[in-house]
């Protein structure tokens, strides 16, 4: 049987840290960090994992309705998140808890939507971190539009460089959506300052990668006329270096890049999911050996970049964060029912006003009659 697949040579994977924690080098992606910076990255990874574990526990305890965990994807998230400047803007899916953390979004505010007290939870403009997007792929177009705006401002000001760039997060499954592919086209045609960051965790709920593509995903970009690169998504250093470089290029006016962070979803899709129905335990075991946090821990240890005190105090900090999350989560108030009506529109709308008034007086009628619950 002939095959129409184009041959493009071997798949390259950018790595700066081996699974064993050895620092290696790559001709295109250099990274020169101070000891403190290495430790800071580890701290981000550890805190992200702690947030994720705590939220998972809170779901089990019934405090959250659902949780979409990021276990195993911490390096992809922290590396890309830390590559951004405060002026850059991130458009996440629903799983970018590590990115949120690096942006300075309070992890507690991430819980609101999973608890069911909010459909958002934070001000996107405070930390340049958009709200979580649940409809697969939608946010990639928002990211490109935002980047076009950045670009227009520069063009109007007569500046060749952009003040900032944008990161569009999406998953391997999302790569099949029309919106995501349209976002590639627009970014390419307008040469928009955006980095497409695909966390290829190899699963879209129960569907393995091969249901979405038959070639490595980073190569998708080549068909749209821009560069794609695959990075070891469990290597925080490589992710940081690669994302930094391509964000910088975007700011310089070189247009979009697709980064495929090759990683693995070590947990269930969400707390509602049961991965034993569709994947082998052995796969998970193999990936545990590539754990992004253990790798960085080895690196710090081997190179004496951190001592026991550092790890101990980080454990304490993590624990304190977990306690704050636990308590904060339980204390998150249910919204006032009348909030249903409050932000449907920015300006008054007769129908909403009418329905609000009617429901308010309906609710009030129960208060008048004590003992009859709403």
């Amino acid at each position: 049987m002939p095959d129409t697949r184009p041959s493009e040579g071997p798949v390259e994977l950018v790595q700066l840290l081996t699974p064993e924690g050895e620092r290696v080098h790559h001709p295109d992606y250099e990274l020169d960090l101070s000891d403190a910076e290495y430790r800071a990255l580890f701290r981000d990874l550890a805190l992200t994992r702690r947030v994720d574990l705590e939220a998972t526990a809170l779901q089990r305890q019934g405090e959250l309705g659902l949780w979409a965990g990021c276990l195993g994807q911490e390096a992809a998230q922290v590396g890309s998140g830390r590559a951004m400047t405060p002026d850059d803007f991130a458009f996440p899916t629903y799983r970018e808890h590590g990115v949120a953390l690096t942006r300075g979004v309070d992890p507690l505010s991430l819980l609101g939507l999973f608890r069911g007290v909010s459909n958002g939870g934070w001000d996107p403009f405070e930390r340049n971190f958009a709200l979580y997007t649940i409809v697969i792929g939608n946010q990639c177009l928002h990211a490109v539009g935002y980047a076009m705006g950045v670009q227009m401002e520069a063009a109007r000001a007569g500046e060749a460089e952009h003040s900032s760039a944008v990161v569009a997060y999406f998953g391997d499954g999302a790569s099949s959506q029309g919106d995501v592919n349209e976002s590639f086209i627009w970014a390419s045609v307008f040469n928009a300052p955006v980095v497409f960051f695909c966390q290829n965790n190899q699963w879209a709920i129960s569907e393995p990668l091969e249901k979405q593509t038959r070639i490595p995903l980073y190569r998708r970009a080549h068909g749209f006329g821009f560069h794609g690169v695959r990075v070891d998504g469990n290597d925080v250093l490589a992710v940081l270096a690669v994302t930094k470089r391509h964000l910088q290029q975007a700011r310089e006016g070189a247009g979009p890049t697709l980064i495929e962070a090759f990683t693995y979803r070590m947990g269930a899709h969400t707390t509602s999911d049961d991965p034993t129905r569709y994947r082998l335990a052995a796969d998970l075991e193999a990936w545990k050996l590539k754990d992004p946090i253990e790798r960085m821990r080895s690196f710090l240890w081997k190179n004496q970049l951190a001592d026991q005190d550092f790890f101990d105090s980080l454990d304490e900090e993590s624990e304190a964060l977990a306690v704050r999350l636990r308590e904060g989560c339980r204390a998150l108030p249910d919204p006032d029912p009348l909030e249903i009506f409050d932000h449907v529109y920015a300006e008054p709308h007769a129908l909403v006003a009418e329905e609000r008034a009617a429901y308010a007086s309906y609710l009030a009628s129960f208060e008048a009659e004590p003992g009859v619950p709403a």
Partner: protein
Amino acid sequence: MKTAETLTMAKALNLALRRCLEADDKTLIMGEDVGKLGGVFRVTDALQKDFGEHRVIDTPLAESAILGTAIGLAMRGFRPIVEIQFDGFVYPAYDQIVSQLAKMHARSRGQVPLPIVVRIPYGGGIGAVEHHSESPEAYFAHTAGLRVVTPSHPVDAYWMLRQAVACNDPVIFFEPKRRYWDKAEVDESLEPTTPLFAGRVARPGTDLTIACYGPMVRTCLEAAAAAEAEGRNLEVLDLRSLSPLDVDLVCASVERTGRLVVVHEAPVWLGVGAEIAARVQERCFYSLQAPVLRVGGFHAPYPPSRIEEHYLPDLDRILDAVDRATEH
């Protein structure tokens, strides 16, 4: 052979799909996670294992393509049954549904029938996150060329799905997800008594008619039971089909009771209840002793789940409307 079994609605649907796959090898199941996982609600559980990957197809993550390729498959003679994972994820496919699925038969003057069933778990009440609790049925019922049906209990779920698969028109099959775990005895040996596109009297009554469908049927029956305790005898109609809609059934009932309340989870504004009210006021102008009232969702996005019970019609809101219609 055992023909009667107590089944949840999810299992009744699963059994119906199994029978369809057995009966006609042109039937296919397509969707996200419908294979090994058996769907997020397990409605397609074990079907891929038993019928193979050529009959039960895990698709790439793209709803427009799910519908678009189903149309192509139907043109090749297959009968695809596609699953949209949740109500809020049908919109990427809306273009293929409205411009192709709904119009192809008319465009081709009958030469290209598209016997495709689009299963959509819909509605709220399960404490889910955004986009997982919507009731978009009016968008489809307004669209000529589509048929829209929704069962309210396991027996109907079983039969209506089988009938929908047998239908030569596209059928949007809305499954009330919060009733997936409701149980009933399903007897496969009994032929269904109601045609797919007819409604039924779920509870006969004399004082007032409640018209409802899908997830609200159980709620309305509970409301009727509560009203009975207060001496009110309500008739509850389970519409079952929204396109076509059994207007005759509703009008016949209203002519007896003189009063009508329509209940659905979907927003009241331009919801199916609007059409029912408009038809009934026209056809039963002199029989109506009170205006048709409607109970449903608000003109607002579905709220966070902790307050969803305020959005969803419940016994109190239904009985409040019943009171208002009665006292008018």
